C-alpha cells in the first residue's frame, strides 16, 4: 500500500496500524486486507463486487472497519456491501471512503450498503468522505444506504463530507418496524464548484418507531447543495427531520422536505433554516479579539462539529 492510500486510510478511518477487530480494506476495486473475528465474518460476494459482513447475535462492543480507497484517476469503483446484524448485537462500523485524483480523469466510488438489523440489534455506523489530490480530475462519491430495521433495533448513522469531493449524490432509505429507532446525522461542507445532493426516505411502519434526521451543511464559494427528505408515518410513530445550512459567498442550498402522516397517531416535524452567518455571532467573537475571518472560521467549525 502506498503513502496515498495510507494517508486516505488515516483520514477516513483514523487508521494507524492494523486495528483490533474485523476489517476489510478496499483499494481501487481490489481487496488490500481483510480480517474476520470469532463474531464478525467478512466474505466476498460471489455474484458481484463487494462483501457480506455477518455479525453473530449478542456480539457486544466490536468495531468493524471497512474503508474504501480510490487512489488515482480513471477508476470507477462500484461496490455492494451487505451487513447482517444478529439479534441484540451491538457494534460500531467505520466505513470511510477516500478518493484521490492527481490526474485529469475521474476517480469515483459508488458504494451501495445494505443493513439488515435483527431484533434488538444496535449499530453505530460512521462514514467519512474525503477527496484529496491536485489534479483537475473529478472526485466523485455516490453512496447509497438501505436499512431494514427489525423490532426494537437501533441504528445511528453519522456521515461527514468536509472537503475535496466534487460531486456527491447520496441516497438513504430506511424501513422501520415496531419500536425501531433511526438517527442520521449528516455534515457537509462544499466549496469551489462542488455539488452535493442528499436524499432521505424513511418509512415508519412500526408502532412506536422513530426517526431523527439532522443535516448540518455549509455551502461556500459557488457550490450548490440539495437536501431532500421524505418521511412517511404509517403507524403511531415519531419523525423529525432538520436541515440547518449556512451559505457563504455565492453558495446555494435548497431544502425540500416532505412529511406524510398516514396514521392519526403519527407525529412528524420538519425544520429547515438556511442563511448566512448571523452578524451578531461575528460581532460577539470579534469582541473577544478574533478578526472577522477568524470568527467566521470558528463559527463554521463549531457548526459542523
Amino acid at each position, binding site marked *: 500500500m502506498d503513502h496515498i492510500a495510507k494517508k486516505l486510510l488515516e483520514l477516513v478511518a483514523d487508521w494507524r496500524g492494523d486495528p483490533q477487530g474485523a476489517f476489510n480494506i478496499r483499494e481501487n476495486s481490489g481487496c488490500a486486507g481483510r480480517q474476520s473475528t470469532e463474531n464478525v465474518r467478512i466474505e466476498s460476494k460471489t455474484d458481484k463486487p463487494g462483501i457480506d459482513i455477518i455479525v453473530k447475535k449478542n456480539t457486544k462492543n466490536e468495531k468493524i472497519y471497512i474503508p474504501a480507497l480510490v487512489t488515482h484517476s480513471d477508476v470507477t469503483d462500484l461496490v455492494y456491501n451487505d451487513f447482517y446484524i444478529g439479534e441484540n448485537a451491538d457494534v460500531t462500523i467505520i466505513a470511510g471512503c477516500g478518493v484521490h485524483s492527481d490526474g485529469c480523469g475521474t476517480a469515483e466510488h459508488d458504494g451501495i450498503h445494505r443493513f439488515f438489523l435483527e431484533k434488538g440489534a444496535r449499530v453505530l455506523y460512521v462514514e467519512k468522505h474525503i477527496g484529496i489530490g491536485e489534479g483537475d480530475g473529478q472526485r466523485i462519491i455516490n453512496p447509497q444506504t438501505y436499512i431494514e430495521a427489525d423490532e426494537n433495533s437501533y441504528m445511528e448513522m453519522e456521515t461527514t463530507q468536509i472537503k475535496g469531493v466534487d460531486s456527491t449524490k447520496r441516497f438513504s432509505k430506511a424501513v422501520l418496524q415496531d419500536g425501531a429507532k433511526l438517527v442520521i446525522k449528516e455534515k457537509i461542507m462544499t466549496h469551489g464548484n462542488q455539488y452535493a445532493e442528499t436524499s432521505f426516505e424513511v418509512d415508519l411502519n412500526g408502532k412506536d418507531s422513530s426517526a431523527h434526521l439532522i443535516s448540518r451543511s455549509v455551502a461556500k464559494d459557488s457550490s450548490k447543495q440539495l437536501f431532500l427528505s421524505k418521511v412517511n408515518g404509517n403507524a403511531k410513530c415519531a419523525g423529525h427531520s432538520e436541515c440547518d445550512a449556512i451559505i457563504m459567498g455565492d453558495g446555494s442550498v435548497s431544502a425540500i422536505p416532505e412529511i406524510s402522516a398516514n396514521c392519526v397517531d403519527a407525529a412528524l416535524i420538519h425544520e429547515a433554516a438556511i442563511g448566512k452567518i448571523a452578524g451578531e455571532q461575528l460581532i460577539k467573537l470579534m469582541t473577544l479579539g478574533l478578526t472577522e475571518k477568524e470568527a467566521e472560521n*470558528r463559527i463554521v467549525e463549531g457548526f459542523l462539529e
Partner: protein
Amino acid sequence: MLELKNISLNVENSKDILNDVSLTVGDGKFVVITGPNGGGKSTLAKVAAGILSPTSGQIYFNGQNITQSSITDRARLGISYAFQQPVRFKGIKVRDLITLAAGRELTTAGVCEYLSEVGLCARDYVDREVNASLSGGEIKRIEIAMVMARGTQLSIFDEPEAGIDLWSFQNLIEVFRKLHNGIQGSSIIIISHQERIMEIADEIVVLSDGKVLTQGPREEVLPKLLGGTDTCRFCPKEVG
C-alpha cells in the same frame, strides 16, 4: 481610561440617539450608567466597543484615539463588552467560548473556575452547547464569565442583572467587586437600573434622551435618583 468626547449618533429622519455626549471613566473606576429605556445607554456602550460608529465625536482609550478602530482592535487593546442579549451558537460549547475569551488554552479546571464564579455548576455546563437549550439566565451568566476570563482593563456590561434570579443577585455583585479589585487599575462600566448595583459604584451617570443628564459621585447622584417618589425618578426637574 476611557474618554468619550462630544459623541453624537443620529439616524436620518429620526431624533438623535446620542446627542453630544461627553464622558470620562477614570482608571480604577466603577461607573454605573442608568436612565430611562430608550435613553441611549446601550447605544453608548456599543459605540465604546466599536459595534456602532458615532456620527461625530471622538473616543480615546488610555490616551489613544480609537474612534476609527475596529471591534477586534478595541478588544485586543483591552475593552470587553457583555451583551444585553447574549448570542447563541450552534455547535460551539461553553468551554470553547470561555477559552476564546481567555485567549489561551485553558484546562477544564480553568474553565470551571470562571463558571463557578458566576454560580454555574461547572461540570454540568462546560460541554453544553451555547444554543437555544440554555435559559436566559444561564446564558447571561456565561456572558459574564467570558468577560471575567478576558480580564481586560475595561469591562462594559449591558444590564447584566436582567434575567438573573434574586438568589444569585448578591453573588453577581460580588463578581463585579472581585473583577474590579482583581486587576490593578481596571475600570468597569455597568448599564443598570438596579439600586444595589448603583450602591457599589464610584460614579453614576444618568443618560436620558441621548444626553447626559447628571454625572457625578454616587454619594451625590444616588440620593437624588431615589428621592421624590411622586414623579419619575429620571425626570429632569427632579434631578436637574
